[in-house]
């Protein structure tokens, strides 16, 4: 269905459509940056295309690429024809793309987000400010050259001893607050669901070799022995939880 969109665009724009593709049923056209706004307007206003639903606008950073650093990606859909199309263009660092806010007003926040995260400017945008981060933030965090662990705190961190990350998250300090399968318990078949489930049923490996894990393991072994003594068939126990 979307192939019709590509055909229509190609018929109208000719070789200004640089590339087309339909990988996995996702139809895409690549256009030059100078045609960006015109293609969008065409998508929205063409009698047949009627792309009235702005889905998303985002960007991809290719720092290793020589010609243009960013891909700008527009996803749009027609609620009339049910067709979808993806439009992609290339933007060099420092270059500005034309705004699409006059085509779809929904592009307003999406363009602000792209500016916030990638630092791509949009010419003619009515209010190009950061949308998720704060004005004090330096840089654009979804650029691949932004350090992955660099935080820019608004409030200076306290520097006292007690804020060293306490480790409440091993199985010893953590919380084996088991979820209890109350229904099973009422029926007389106590089936703990977590965290001993793996140990109990041999489905998963133990979370760790800690003391708590060993204790649980020992208790399960003891329970199995008890069951064997009572002559309880092992198969029936296993089958009941399936």
């Amino acid at each position: 269905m979307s192939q019709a969109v590509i055909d229509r665009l190609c018929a109208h724009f000719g070789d200004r459509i640089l590339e087309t593709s339909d990988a996995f049923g996702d139809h895409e056209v690549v256009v030059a940056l100078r045609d960006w706004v015109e293609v969008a307007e065409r998508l929205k206003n063409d009698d047949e295309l009627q792309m009235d639903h702005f889905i998303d606008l985002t960007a991809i950073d290719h720092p290793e690429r020589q010609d243009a650093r960013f891909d700008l990606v527009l996803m749009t859909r027609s609620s009339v024809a049910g067709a979808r199309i993806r439009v992609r263009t290339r933007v060099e660092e420092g270059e500005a793309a034309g705004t699409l806010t006059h085509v779809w007003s929904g592009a307003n926040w999406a363009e602000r987000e792209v500016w916030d995260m990638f630092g791509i400017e949009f010419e003619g945008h009515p209010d190009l400010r950061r949308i998720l981060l704060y004005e004090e933030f330096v840089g654009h965090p979804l650029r691949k050259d932004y350090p992955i662990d660099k935080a820019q705190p608004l409030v200076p961190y306290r520097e006292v001893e007690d804020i060293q990350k306490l480790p409440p998250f091993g199985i010893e300090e953590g919380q084996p607050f088991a979820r209890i399968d109350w229904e099973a318990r009422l029926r007389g078949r106590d089936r703990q669901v977590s965290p001993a489930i793996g140990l109990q049923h041999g489905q998963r490996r133990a979370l760790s070799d800690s003391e708590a894990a060993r204790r649980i393991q020992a208790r399960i072994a003891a329970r199995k022995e008890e069951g064997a003594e009572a002559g309880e068939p092992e198969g029936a126990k296993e089958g009941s939880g399936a």
Partner: protein
Amino acid sequence: MGELKVIGGGGEVAVTTRFSDLLQWARKWSLFQYPFVTACCGMEFMATAAPRYDIARFGAEAPRFSPRQSDVLWVVGTISQRQGPAVRRIWEQMADPKWVIAFGTCASCGGFYDNYTTIPGVDKVIPVDVYIPGCPPRPEAVLDALMLLQDKIQANDRKPIVVPPRLVPERAPGRAKESGT
């Protein structure tokens, strides 16, 4: 409540204790909360407050949506860098004595968010009294935290503490025979 002494007998009995002990005792049973709820941990917080777990048993059920009237700041959920100034300011507005509970892994240490967005533990911004591990913690853990906090208040102890694990009674060693299967 610290040291208690019972004087007299029959119809007339007096109990003596130290004034500070009495004060702490009163404080620990009337903790007005300020819920700073930002994320999914809020669901467990609601469960704790609801009748099944019933936080009211500990005198800690009354939410005060003005920090000036509250005693305990519950930081429930992920705190982003952008929220840092807000949570700091709310803490500053609370009147002494005040306590802070970091509810869940994100509030305690940032959880799996280790990047530009999130404060790696609300203790980077404000001092925390009790940390509750869990993603999210079960209401039992929350009640354990509340009882820990009460103990700390009674003992006048401001050392941060992590809620320790608790064995489900049925699983505790020695109880296996009784509970059966």
